[in-house]
C-alpha cells in the first residue's frame, strides 16, 4: 500500500501518495504549475527550471517536476519572485530562438509561445543571441529545426526510452547543448524509423513533419490530374477536436465532405483496404496455422515498425506478413483497379493519403512500392496537415453537412475501422480467420482481451478444428522489443514461437496515437480516440472484413482470390536488412512471392 502524506499547495491542504512529485500532486488536484520540459506521459528531464516552486523552510526554489512530496510540505507555486524567475528563464530561451510564431507550424499550440504569453514576455523587445544552424531536412518524414529547439530533452526520452530506436541524443553541454544525430549525419542517416513520436511530444515547432500540402494543392489545381484521396481509420476520430468538436468525435462523413470541398476528384477510404488487408493477411495466417508452422506471423501495416524490424530484427523478417499496408494497397489499386474500372489513364492519377503517421511518408517513397508501374502513393499528408488544409480552404468543418464517399474503394466494416487502435488489426483478423478456418461466424465479435492500452496484451482463442490460437499485441516499440526478444529467444531454444499471430504497431496506442496526429496527442486522448473507433465498429451494419461487399466485388472482378498471382503481385512486398548505424539498406532479406 502506498503511504499518503499531507501537503499544502498555495494554502490548500491535500493528501497525496508519497510516491508523487510536487507537479504530479498539483496536476492531480487541478493546480497548474507552469512548466516547459515536463510532460505527464514521460519521466521528467528537469532541464528547463520553469516549474520552480517555493517550499517553506527551504532557502532556494525547487523544481516541482523532480522534487518528491514530503509530509508537512508547504508549497507556494505563485509569487512575485517565482514569476520574475520564470519570466527571466523564458526571456533567455526566446533570445536564443528563431521566433517566427505567425508562420510556425506550432503556432497556437506551442508550449513556449503559450508560456511566454501567460508570463507577459514580449519577444520583440528581446536581444537575439541566436547562432543560426542549418535545418535538418534530410529525412523524408521529419524536419528538425535546431533554431526552435529549447533543449527540453523530451524527444530524446521518447526516441530512446519509449521507442528504443536510439536515433538522437543530447550533444555538447551548457549553452551549446543541442539535440542531434550521431556525428551530425542527419535524420536520414540515422536509425530513425520516422515514427514521429518526437514531433508529438516536442513542445515547440522544432520537430515537425515534412510538409507536402503545397504539392497536393498543385495536383488538385492541375486540370490534367485525377486526384484520389484515402483516409486512414484513425483520422476520422481525430479531426474534430481541432474544430471545437469533442475529443474523439466520429466524423467520417464530414471528413469526406471537407475533402470534396478542398477539390479532390475522388474521395474514398483506407478502411476499405484495411478490410482487404485482413483477407490477404488472414489467409496467410490460416495457411501457416494449417501447415503447423512454428514461426509466428507478424502484422505489417505499421511502417515505423517495419523499418524498426528491418534495423533491429532482420533475422525475423520472414515472420512478418508479406501483405502491404492498407495505404499501399490502396495506392497500387488506385492506379490499376480503379483506373481500369473508371477508364482513367493511370499516368494521370495522383494518389493522396491522409495518415495519422509520419512514417507513411517514408513508406510511400520506398522504391519497391511501385507495382502499378508508378509510385503507388504519390503524397502523404498527416492529420495535422489536413487540418491546416481545411483551415486554409476556410471550411467550417464543425458545421459541414455530411456526405457519402465515392464508391468503389470506400465501403468498410467495423473490422476495418478498428485498425486504427492497438489490438484492432488482431481483432479484425480473428473475426475473419475464424470464419476462414471453420466456415462459421464467430459468436462474440468483441475480443476484449486485445483491447486497451496495456503495453503487451496476450490472448488464446479456441478455434474448432484447429485448437488454441495464441496471439500477442504490442504497441510502442519498446513493447515490440519485449515481444520480439521473446520470439527470437523461444525460436532459438525451443524452435517454436510462444504465439501464432502477433500484432505490432510502432506508436503507443496504435494509429490513434500516431506521430502525425493533432498536437496534444497524449495517452489520455489516444485512449479516448481508440474508444471512439470501437463505438463506430459497434454502430456499423457490417463488422467483418470478409462481408464487405466492395471487397467481395474486387475479388470477383479483379483479383480473383486472396493470394492469387495478381494479389501477390500488387498487394504483397518484401523486406530488407538495415544498418543500425545509419538505417541504410544492407541487403534484401525476403523475396517477393509469385505463387502461393
Amino acid at each position, binding site marked *: 500500500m502506498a503511504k499518503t502524506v499531507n501537503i499544502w499547495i498555495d494554502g490548500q491542504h491535500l493528501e497525496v501518495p508519497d510516491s508523487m512529485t510536487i507537479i504530479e500532486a498539483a496536476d492531480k488536484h487541478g493546480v497548474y504549475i507552469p512548466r516547459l520540459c515536463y510532460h505527464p506521459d514521460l519521466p521528467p528531464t528537469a532541464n528547463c527550471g520553469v516549474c520552480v516552486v517555493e517550499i517553506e523552510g527551504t532557502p532556494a526554489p525547487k523544481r516541482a517536476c523532480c522534487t518528491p512530496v514530503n509530509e508537512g510540505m508547504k508549497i507556494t507555486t505563485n509569487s512575485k519572485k517565482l514569476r520574475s524567475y520564470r519570466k527571466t528563464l523564458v526571456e533567455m530561451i526566446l533570445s536564443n530562438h528563431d521566433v517566427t510564431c505567425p508562420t510556425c507550424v506550432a503556432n497556437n499550440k506551442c508550449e513556449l509561445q503559450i508560456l511566454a504569453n501567460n508570463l507577459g514576455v514580449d519577444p520583440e523587445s528581446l536581444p537575439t543571441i541566436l547562432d543560426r544552424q542549418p535545418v535538418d531536412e534530410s529525412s523524408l518524414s521529419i524536419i528538425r529545426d535546431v533554431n526552435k529547439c529549447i533543449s527540453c530533452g523530451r524527444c530524446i526520452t521518447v526516441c*530512446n526510452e519509449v521507442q528504443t530506436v536510439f*536515433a538522437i*541524443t*543530447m*550533444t*555538447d553541454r551548457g549553452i551549446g547543448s543541442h539535440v*542531434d544525430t*550521431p*556525428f551530425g549525419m542527419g535524420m536520414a542517416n540515422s536509425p530513425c524509423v520516422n515514427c514521429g513520436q518526437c514531433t508529438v511530444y516536442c513542445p515547440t515547432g522544432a520537430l515537425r513533419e515534412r510538409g507536402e500540402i503545397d504539392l497536393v494543392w498543385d495536383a488538385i489545381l492541375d486540370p490534367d490530374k485525377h486526384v484520389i484521396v484515402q483516409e486512414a481509420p484513425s483520422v476520422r476520430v481525430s479531426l474534430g477536436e481541432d474544430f471545437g468538436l469533442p475529443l474523439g468525435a466520429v466524423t467520417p462523413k464530414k471528413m469526406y465532405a471537407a475533402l470534396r470541398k478542398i477539390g479532390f476528384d475522388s474521395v474514398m477510404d483506407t478502411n476499405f483496404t484495411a478490410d482487404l488487408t485482413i483477407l490477404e493477411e488472414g489467409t496467410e495466417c490460416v495457411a501457416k496455422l494449417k501447415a503447423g508452422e512454428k514461426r509466428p506471423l507478424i502484422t505489417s501495416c505499421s511502417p515505423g515498425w517495419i523499418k524498426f524490424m528491418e534495423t533491429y530484427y532482420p533475422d525475423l523478417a520472414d515472420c512478418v506478413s508479406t501483405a502491404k499496408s492498407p495505404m499501399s494497397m490502396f495506392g497500387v489499386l488506385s492506379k490499376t483497379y480503379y483506373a481500369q474500372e473508371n477508364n482513367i489513364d493511370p499516368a494521370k492519377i495522383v494518389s493522396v493519403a491522409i495518415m495519422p503517421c509520419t512514417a507513411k511518408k517514408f513508406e510511400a517513397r520506398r522504391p519497391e512500392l511501385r507495382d502499378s508501374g508508378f509510385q503507388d502513393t504519390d503524397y502523404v499528408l498527416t492529420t495535422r496537415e489536413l487540418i491546416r488544409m481545411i483551415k486554409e480552404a476556410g471550411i467550417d468543418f464543425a458545421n459541414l453537412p455530411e456526405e457519402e464517399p465515392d464508391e468503389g474503394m470506400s465501403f468498410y466494416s467495423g473490422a476495418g475501422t478498428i485498425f486504427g487502435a492497438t489490438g484492432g488489426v488482431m481483432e479484425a483478423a480473428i473475426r475473419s480467420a475464424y470464419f476462414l478456418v471453420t466456415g462459421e461466424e464467430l459468436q462474440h465479435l468483441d475480443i476484449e482481451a486485445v483491447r486497451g492500452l496495456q503495453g503487451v496484451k496476450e490472448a488464446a482463442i479456441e478455434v474448432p478444428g484447429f485448437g488454441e490460437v495464441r496471439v500477442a499485441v504490442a504497441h510502442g516499440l519498446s513493447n515490440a522489443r519485449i515481444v520480439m526478444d521473446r520470439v527470437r529467444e523461444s525460436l532459438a531454444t525451443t524452435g517454436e514461437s510462444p504465439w501464432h499471430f502477433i500484432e505490432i504497431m510502432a506508436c503507443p496506442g496504435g494509429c490513434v496515437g500516431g506521430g502525425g496526429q493533432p498536437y496534444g496527442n497524449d495517452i489520455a486522448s489516444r485512449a479516448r480516440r481508440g474508444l471512439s473507433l470501437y463505438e463506430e465498429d459497434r454502430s456499423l451494419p457490417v463488422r467483418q472484413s470478409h462481408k464487405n461487399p466492395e471487397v467481395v466485388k474486387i475479388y470477383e472482378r479483379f483479383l480473383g482470390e486472396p493470394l492469387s498471382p495478381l494479389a501477390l503481385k500488387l498487394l504483397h512486398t518484401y523486406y530488407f536488412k538495415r544498418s543500425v548505424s545509419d538505417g541504410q539498406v544492407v541487403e534484401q532479406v525476403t523475396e517477393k512471392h509469385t505463387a502461393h
Partner: protein
Amino acid sequence: MYTEICNKYTPEKHNLIQILHEIQDTHPQHYISAEAVKTVADYLGIAENHIYGVLTFYTMYSTTPRGKNIIRLCESPPCYIKGSQNILRKLKSMLDVQTGETTQDGLFTLELSACLGVCGNAPVMMINDDMYGDLTDERVEEIIEKIRRGNQ
C-alpha cells in the same frame, strides 16, 4: 585496430570512457571516428547515439580529425580576465585557423578548454601534455615557432 583496443577491456559499460580515451590517444589524428563508435557500440552493447552523446559532452574528445599538436587554450573566467581573448586572436592569426580547426600542414589544432587548474598563471594553454602559463603575444610566437622548427 579499434577491435584490438576494445578487446583489452572487459565488455562492460563502465569501460566506455577508458576505451574511448585509448582510441583517441592512439589514433594518429587524435580523434574518434564514426567507425570507432560503431565498433565500441557493438562491443559494449551500447547504442551509438549514446556514445556520441558522451563524446560530445566531454571537451577532451574530438569527433573530427585533429593535428599532430593539440593546443587547448583555457576559456574559464580567470584566464578571460587576464586576456585569453587576445591570446586566442594571436593564435588564430598565427595559425590561420578558427577555433576547432586544424592547420593546413596538419601540425596544429586549436581548441578551447574548461579550466586547466593553474589559474595563478593565467592566461594558460596546454599543447599536448605540456602546460604554458603567463602567456603574452611574444611568448605564444616563441612557443609555436619552436614546435614548428622541431618538426622540420
